[in-house]
């Protein structure tokens, strides 16, 4: 879990250019981290590569916070 969060954090920092301290489990990509729809699509793409999994479009649409991403990855790897 801690490891997953660290890897997710790194991708978010790289992609969105936000300060790491803002990336908490409750943080919403769009509201708290300033991502637009396309940023979220890109994040999902990178997470798929990083964790070697496929996130369906239906699932991807439900993911809005950092915590949801971590939970999704934990339950699918």
């Amino acid at each position: 879990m801690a490891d997953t969060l660290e890897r997710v954090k790194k991708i978010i920092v790289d992609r969105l250019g936000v300060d790491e301290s803002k990336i908490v489990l409750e943080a919403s990509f769009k509201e708290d981290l300033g991502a637009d729809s396309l940023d979220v699509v890109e994040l999902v793409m990178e997470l798929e590569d990083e964790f070697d999994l496929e996130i369906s479009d239906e699932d991807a649409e439900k993911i809005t916070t950092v915590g949801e991403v971590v939970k999704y990855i934990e339950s699918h790897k």
Partner: protein
Amino acid sequence: MLTGKTTLVTGASRGIGRAIALKLAQAGANIVVNYAGSEAAASETVEQVKALGREAIMVRANVSDSEDVNEMFKTALEHFGNIDILVNNAGITRDNLLMRMKEEEWDAVIDTNLKGVFNCVKAATRPMMKQRSGKIINITSVVGVLGNAGQANYVAAKAGVIGLTKTAARELATRGITVNAVAPGFIDTEMTAVLPEDVKANLVGQIPLGRLGQTDDIASVVLFLASDSANYMTGQTLHVDGGMYM
């Protein structure tokens, strides 16, 4: 000009598609030759690209089938590692008057000529977004803006491609991907060769420049849009039709 760039051209076995493949290869690009049925013609395009000293592979895929398209991009990426330029050229006709047009004729043309472009743009977006660069060029048609009796399906699809081009351009602009269209007029290819002589003569009468276009006339403009010369253009439709639409 395009040295080392990987270009995927749909419907590249014949006609305008082949001319585009060869033009871009001349400018240095390696080519993924997509074809749906004409395997012999596709391998001829591949040989001609290789004769120019570039790399080429052929991949069979029906662009209206998203699984086929995804497989094609996978194959292309495995071989070349990236896709820099996508030219959506594949197209078919099933002409008939509206009153007589069968649902199958409508669907077949919309599936290949419009949904096919959507499928390929969608598949290309992922690698291009990662690269933060890419050029997508969609081949539409003069009839997409003028209308044409007997081609309700083809015209609707080609007009749709112009709207799709503008929308993709807006969505992808911030990622360094440009999306433009080329609208050929009547070009001397197998697609127009089937027209009766009197119809052709009548067509030429409507062209200010007084002749059918050649495939190379289209390929030259595609080359321009694929090159760095067109870096500041996106969402545009360039009309290459001897002045039919102005």
